[in-house]
């Protein structure tokens, strides 16, 4: 019974972490039809910002929830102004340019922080469930993922900004017709996306050993999750994260972690073959 509880927690955690690592990419892709392949490096930078802030004496939660997203968001803004904005509408070119950026940031981080693994310890201690010890931080991540999804929903559904953003998603000219500069909407979107990537990196930092190449481990998963989710931002994110998190954890427990990863990938291939437009391309159409 305790084991079942532990497995459920691990499963929820797997889903939540997929939501976290994919959210930034999903926003940028959903709104701007841009695949940001430097997404993983944005997460990596979020991690480094957190660690640096904590060593400089900041409270760990402030560092994770405020400093890291803001700093990474600003970096994203610079990237958008310098590189991305020249490439709107050129999907493949943006992928290549952001790929280049990802290499650039890896190199930069290596020069600044060196390649030695760094990290901070988890701010929440573990606790006991029957005969098991569970990582308390898992609950924090699950909570953050739920809050994040709720917030995204509220912003998109309830605010003027969300309305404009949804309009821009449907028809890029829509916003312009309403008198908003699409350029500024894209800037804002890219800032938000980058900030979310930074947040995800920051929150996962205490769980992993951080190196400049850490981002590579996330980008493939995030990319797959977002594409498999399909056109609906929030529903798609939840559906594909739920599906992949569930499948990979089942195989991880039943067989081995490798099989968990492979199962996730195989599921992605099968899913895309059956639903080439992603889950929400077929089901839950028109949802957010």
């Amino acid at each position, binding site marked *: 019974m305790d084991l079942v509880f532990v497995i459920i927690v691990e499963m929820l955690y797997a889903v939540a972490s997929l939501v976290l690592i994919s959210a930034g990419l999903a926003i940028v892709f959903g709104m701007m039809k841009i695949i940001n392949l430097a997404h993983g490096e944005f997460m990596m930078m979020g991690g480094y910002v957190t660690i640096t802030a904590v060593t400089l004496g900041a409270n760990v939660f402030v560092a994770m929830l405020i400093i890291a997203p803001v700093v990474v968001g600003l970096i994203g803004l610079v990237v958008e102004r310098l590189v991305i904005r020249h490439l709107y509408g050129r999907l493949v070119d943006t992928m*290549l*340019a952001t*790929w*280049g950026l990802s290499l650039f940031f890896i190199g930069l981080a290596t020069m600044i922080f060196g390649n030695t693994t760094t990290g901070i310890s988890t701010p929440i201690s573990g606790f006991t469930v029957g005969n098991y010890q569970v990582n308390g931080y898992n609950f924090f991540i699950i909570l953050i993922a739920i809050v994040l999804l709720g917030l995204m929903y509220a912003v998109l559904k309830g605010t003027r900004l969300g309305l404009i953003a949804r309009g821009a998603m449907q028809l890029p000219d829509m916003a312009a017709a309403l008198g908003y500069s699409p350029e500024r909407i894209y800037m804002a979107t890219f800032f938000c996306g980058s900030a979310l990537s930074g947040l995800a990196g920051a929150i996962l930092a205490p769980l992993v050993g951080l190196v400049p190449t850490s981002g590579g481990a996330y980008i493939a998963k995030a990319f797959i999750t977002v*594409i498999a989710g399909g056109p609906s931002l929030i529903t798609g994110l939840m559906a594909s994260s739920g599906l992949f998190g569930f499948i990979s954890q089942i195989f991880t427990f039943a067989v081995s972690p490798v099989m968990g990863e*492979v199962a996730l*990938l*195989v599921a992605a291939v099968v899913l*895309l073959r059956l639903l080439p437009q992603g889950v929400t391309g077929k089901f839950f159409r028109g949802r957010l």
Partner: protein
Amino acid sequence: MASFWAKEVPATIIVAALLIWIMPMMIGTYTLTVLLIYGMLGFSLGLIWGFGGILCFGQAAFFGLGAYTYAIAAINIGDSTIPMLLAVLVPAAFAALLGAMMFYGRLTDVYLGVITLVVTLILFKFISSTAGPEYVIGKARLGGFNGIPGFQTLNVPGRPNDYIYGDPYFYFCAVLLLIVYLLVSWLLKSSFGRVAVGIRENEVRVALMGYDVSARKTVLFAIGAAIAGLAGGLFANWGEIVTPNLFSLGQSAEIIIWCIVGGLGTRIGPIVGAAGLAYLKFLLGQQSMIDNTLLTGIILVLFVLFLPKGLVPAIASLWRISFGQRRQLPRHGARRIRSGGARHG
């Protein structure tokens, strides 16, 4: 077609012969050999991406598959001839299956990218986790992360003890690349090649003409994989070890960068891009002031921003502006650069 055999083939052979003669005086043949192999690998993606419009994020999968196929077969067979053939055929067959799955499923651009990327990841993860003694094919241990060393390297067919290595191996690879280049040139001149370009330009139109687009893309994809597999087999012979890194995303990324930098839609561009960047990496390894990853990243970003068509087309248009027929400048100056007449008869 006539001018192809009468002019282009002899001209290509002469230029290639000159290069094969001159290059070893400047760069060691061992390094040159791997540059040629990378050139062939870049060429394979240049063919399917530049002429077929198929952006494959997993060309490294076919490269690695070719290398592993060679290594495993060579350990089991002990003579290099059949393994070399298998290194071409296995990736081609794999690509045909994968391609059929994707193209008959009408997957395009990003979705195609995801699937090829994911398949590469699966192969990488699988091969990396085969360190245990239970992963054996015939006499060959897969070896996991450490790869497979110590297999039979290239020998004169039927004589397993007469190795082809060192300088002769360089000439072997050079001639092979030349042959592949000519075959692909011929393919692009043929109806198949032109229809492939048509598919790149407008898939729907070509289907509306009654061509089987899915089948044609699958075949082209398989041809690209066969060339990548050949490069993989050659690489295995060169390095005398194969490791899962051959399948890595980093490797795939490099191939794409080679094509972008060299120039898509040209035949020579990806070869030049591959050899040039690989040599640059080799030179950079001899210094340690600037981080090499950082530099590669900057190069890619700058190319996408300022030279999205790549080096070879840029140089060609510069050449045309400087030495071309001035009278036609207004019309031709802004024209898309053509692939050395590849799309003409």
